[in-house]
């Protein structure tokens, strides 16, 4: 058996967004946005069943940041972006409220906000977190996931005018966890987000990340990296909706696959609407295949409705780290293990280095190396301690 990969590309199929579960019937698996996902392994996250189970939280909140729980009727929750699929709608409905992390306007945080979410049960967990980042503030927010759970979450990220947010998500789940996540970013005028999602653990991880702009000058750097081991399914679907003029987006996702049945999916949809003159966008997905028996699907879609843009492009490559590369590096004196590390570390280092949180970067690089050395859970579990 060898590895398979597909690279497709075409027009953007616009998905309905809504708050209402009734708008999203149970998928059959043939739908465009579900066709890659093994539905049975979502293990209940498509079923409308209330649950009081929660993840346990450890937080570090610097000055200028507050964390509160609000009820379902809270006015803020009427203003968050809609979700794009059934799991997202179920998470909003069944989480009955949200945890709101608020960064005060004009605040410049002296250290990152850290939210560590740990799962330790088999129950379904529904969750909604709102990051309410005030105008002209500067903040770094890190959300780390560990343990085991069946978790459907919505992260609503509201970046107000002139604010700059660095967002990092770490999926360091145990091997049997299931995680379906919406990340809905709304950028105000001249607002910036630099987001990095790092997906290492879990049995099934499915991210749906959306970016919308409400004014000119919005800037979204959406990065991610994933390493899928034998049997793991890791899926990242991005939708950048350029409706405002003079905004920018850059999507870069890189993944490595190793082991029988490792499956990754990356879908990048970028829509440039007629109103979005002066848009500058690029999206890229690169996959590094380390062993036979893996499958990488990569689908970049770009649709442009105005001729008045600065730039738009996409690229997708999937390549093997093969015996010839190993031979070449070894023929230069580099021992086998080091040769492998060199290639994979080099592949991911660029994404890690631009996070801008040095101690987290170090931990992530260590976790990535351990993951590649074949000790996945131990490694990333440690990241979360």
């Amino acid at each position, binding site marked *: 058996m060898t590895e398979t990969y597909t690279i497709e590309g075409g027009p953007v199929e616009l998905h309905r967004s809504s708050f209402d579960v009734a708008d999203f019937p149970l998928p059959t698996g043939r739908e465009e946005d579900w066709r890659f996902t093994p539905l049975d392994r979502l293990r209940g996250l498509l079923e409308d069943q209330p649950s009081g189970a929660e993840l346990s939280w450890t937080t570090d909140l610097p000055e200028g940041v507050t964390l509160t729980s609000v009820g379902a009727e809270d006015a803020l929750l009427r203003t968050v972006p809609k979700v794009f699929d059934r799991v997202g709608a179920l998470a909003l409905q069944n989480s009955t409220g949200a945890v709101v992390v608020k960064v005060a306007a004009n605040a410049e945080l002296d250290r990152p906000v850290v939210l560590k979410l740990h799962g330790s049960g088999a129950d379904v967990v529904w969750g909604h977190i709102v990051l309410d980042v005030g105008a002209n503030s500067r903040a770094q927010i890190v959300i780390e996931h560990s343990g085991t759970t069946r978790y459907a979450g919505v992260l609503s990220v509201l970046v107000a005018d002139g604010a700059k947010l660095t967002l990092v998500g770490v999926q360091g789940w145990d091997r049997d966890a299931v995680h379906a996540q919406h990340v809905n970013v709304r950028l105000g005028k001249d607002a910036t987000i630099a987001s990095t999602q790092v997906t290492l653990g879990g049995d099934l991880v499915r991210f749906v990340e959306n970016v919308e702009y409400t004014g000119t000058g919005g800037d979204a750097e959406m990065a991610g990296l994933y390493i899928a081991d034998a049997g793991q399914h890791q899926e990242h679907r991005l939708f950048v909706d350029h409706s405002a003029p003079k905004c920018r987006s850059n999507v870069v996702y890189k993944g490595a696959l190793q082991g029988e049945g490792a499956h990754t999916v990356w879908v990048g949809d970028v829509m440039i609407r007629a109103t979005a003159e002066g848009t500058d966008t690029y999206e890229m997905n690169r996959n*590094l295949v380390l062993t036979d028996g893996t499958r990488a699907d990569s689908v970049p879609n770009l649709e442009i409705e105005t001729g008045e843009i600065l730039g738009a492009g996409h690229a997708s490559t999937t390549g093997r780290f093969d015996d010839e590369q190993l*031979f070449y590096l*070894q023929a230069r004196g580099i021992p086998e293990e*080091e040769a492998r590390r060199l290639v994979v570390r*080099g592949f991911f280092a660029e994404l890690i280095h631009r996070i801008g949180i040095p101690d987290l970067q170090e931990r992530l690089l260590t976790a990535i190396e351990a993951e590649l050395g074949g000790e996945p859970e131990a490694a990333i579990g440690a990241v979360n301690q």
Partner: protein
Amino acid sequence: MATLEIRDLHVSVETEQGPKEILRGVDLTIASGQTHAIMGPNGSGKSTLAYSIAGHPKYTITSGTVTLDGEDLLEMSVDERARAGLFLAMQYPVEVAGVTVSNFLRTAKTAIDGKAPSLRHWVKDVKGAMDNLKMDPEFAERDVNLGFSGGEKKRHEILQMELLKPKFAVLDETDSGLDVDALKVVSEGVNRVRENSEVGVLLITHYTRILRYIKPDFVHVFVDGKVAAEGGPELADELEANGYDRWTSASV
């Protein structure tokens, strides 16, 4: 003074029809400071010889020996052979995405020397060697061989030879695919290493063209998996005039 000694080397590859013998008893002795040209038609087994010496896993040594300074190379892993002083400039250098040339060179140098090179000298050495090979400094930040033209790949191979300072270098068709200007630049690079070190060179080629720029001490005609004739540089002139026919027809 060191010696690279190849004795009665037999090598086969795995094919769908079972193992196929490609090298049929190769004998060669190369001393430090010498340049030996191996000339042979396509398919005669030249690359097989190069890869077998370097330890490519595709080739099975069925009998014979290869020693470097008396040490058994065939017992060593690929990286051990390189650290013992062997260098192979490949006919088709491999692309390595995600690893920059500068990182690759530094890692290789550290592995070969057993310690990291002094930063100050190293940066200067790399820059100097790249200048000499007329490589744009921006190559240092590009991924190894990724998107390089054929000529750029060959320069990059010789760049490594200059920086890693091997005891013995096997250059597998380093001339193929080069235009005259690039051939000159690459040959000058090889000649610089020959002047500045005691390197022994096994120059594998199909054409006599490169021998105008890199003067061999010995020429070996390679046909059907073994050395069919040996001589001095004058043998290359005969090949230039008459081609390989004399030996290929004799071998049928």
